[in-house]
């Protein structure tokens, strides 16, 4: 039975996972969420 719907605040803004969040934030990190470190000796 459906109940009346009041005010609802979506804390996720519909973004499903962290890669959506990072993409939305304009981040283009190594593999989505990894800090690039020169000591690794590789780049993307």
């Amino acid at each position: 039975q459906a109940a009346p719907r009041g005010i609802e605040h979506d804390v996720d803004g519909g973004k499903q996972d962290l890669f959506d969040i990072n993409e939305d934030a304009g981040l283009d990190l190594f593999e989505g969420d990894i800090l690039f470190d020169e000591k690794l000796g590789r780049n993307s």
Partner: protein
Amino acid sequence: IIGEEYRWPRMVPYYLEDDLEINAKGVILKAFEQYRLKTCIDFKPWSGEQNYISVFKGNGCFSSIGNRRVGKQTLSIGSGCDRLATVEHEFLHALGFWHEQSRSDRDDYVYIDWDQITEGKEHNFNKYNDSVSSFLNVPYDYGSVMHYSQKAFQSGSEPTIITRIPDFKETIGQRMEMSQSDVRKLHTLYHCNKGGSSTFLDSCDFETENICGMIQVSGEESRASWQRVSSAPGGPDTDYTQTGRCAGGGYFMHFSAVEPESSSQLESRFLYPKRGFQCLQFFIYNSGDSSDRLRIWTREFDLHDSNGTLRFIQEIYAPLSDAWHIQHVSLNTSKKFRVLFEAVAGKRTLGGLSIDDLNLWEGSCPEHVWRIRGFSGVMENTSVDSAIYSPRFTSSLGYSFQVSLYPNGTGSNPDELATFLHLTSSDDGDDENDDGLVWPAQWKQMSVTMMDQNPDIRQRMSNQRSVTTDPNMKLDGSEGFFWDDPRKVGELVTGEDGSRYYRGPGAGTKVFLSRPRALSRNFIKNGDSLFLLSMDDLSHLVAPQPLPSSTVPPPQTGSTVTGSPENRTTTVSSTSGFTNATTSTTTAIPASSSSSVTSITNSTLTTIPPSSSVSSSTEPPTDPCVSLQCENDGVCVLDEANLPVCRCAAGSDWWFYGERCEFRSSTHNLIVIAVISGVCVFVVMLMASGVTTYLCVRRQKRRATLPADWLF
């Protein structure tokens, strides 16, 4: 990542930067609790260690891989990242894990459709050969919390990752908790087999005949006993672990009495607590009489007390029902102990009490449980954009709250379960403790967890989302405060029982859990789903985490990401409150006043706390061991003077020692020392013998060469 230099110590120092959202701080502490429960990794507030993890609110969610040994190593929990699974994911990176689909063998298990990837984003699908990255002899895991979802970095609507086993297509990239293989890899990488987890005590589904080392004590005159059975006359017909799915399996413990008022006791094996507060969770079924009850005791042991002292904890009256019910009992013992289940028959002797799927861990119990019966049917029969509401629950903090759930999603996200949390207030203002409540509510974190009903808590992949009441948050387009008294900012609604109350605005998520994931694992068992609800006070997290008294944090190096937190001063805050544990445990029973949905029942059982011997505190009791951090799996215990001391871990040929168990030794070391000592002694003796022999020989020669007349 391969390389011991990337490992952290098992006790990882952390600093929660002041720019973090309060909700994020609370979620991070909850994530730490999951690590403590499932692995040997523990976290401690930074106290000056050379390397530590600085968690801050950056522009997104990100971390480095492993311990970079740069002093302050940053990890960002930005806006929207404050989800339990996301925090666990980032900390797994920090502990040394890449994404699951970057394994060297990934092409055996997933197909990367390069044509569907957004141009320029191909680098996100790197993989590493097994000289750089090891999968630690653990099979590829589609359910890893480190796996991308099928839509990651897609350019159109087609998936970028296609699982070679189609059954996993919809569930990869889960946003729930660490999987069993994630935990297994962590155990291997950090050698957890020597110590186990920090806060786990015991789990038992009664599937094996040794019933997890439990023992039974019955009075000689009693003809009642606990029995391990797969069904019982009068019910239940099946256990809860397997719910009748496996022929020849599925056991539980059943108590039936031949005589009224007879009783029998079932005791756990010895348990060794570290913290001083525990949660006991089990499922119970009553097919006997409403006067049948289950009494929970602990038998606690002092150093010189071999018989133990019984302490009454709680009496539970399980309702007569055709279903299993989940039950939580808070314990608070710091001594070696056993848990004792005493079943007492009521007036009737038919049927009886049954228990199954027992878990005991050192943590807080959830405050309330909202059980939805026939949840698959609810999902099918509820239209999109329609909510169902839980009963109102009163938290130990005095506030009442309620959950709304969209079983079939919302208009914008029809494939995702949505959930929102609301504060409520009575229409007539006669809520208990209502007068003492502060409005707007300040920093109260409400959490809703859809429980994965795996019988072993360490293997559960539950789904959790939390929101925290920010007293300064405004209602859109209004001067009112979002978390103000619902009588001011809410709407008047009528519950199922006709009671009227105010429901405040809700905060939550439209992407709580996808339908395919909700239908996976054990989110629905016996047709039912369980939502665990809690409210915690996070006011103590508003103040900055104290800095070490004599240490200035070293400058951050080695990172190329901007958005680091503001520079902080070296002033030591006088505030306290940063502890390793989340707060708020209670044995209180919710005041389930109403529900707007007839298919929903509140599963909480009637319990009677004892008058004096049970702690009714809503805070974990003060633990003297908090001040002493035992390393290397050492256990903090209280000595005769009630002072905390570390009891160090030891094996057959090795042991730790020192005030904090910080040193390691072994019989091998002793043998080496003995051999070296022996060799040294031998060499010294040899040299002494050589010198003596040399001197004797020389003296003999001298005597032989002297003139004869000199001799006389």
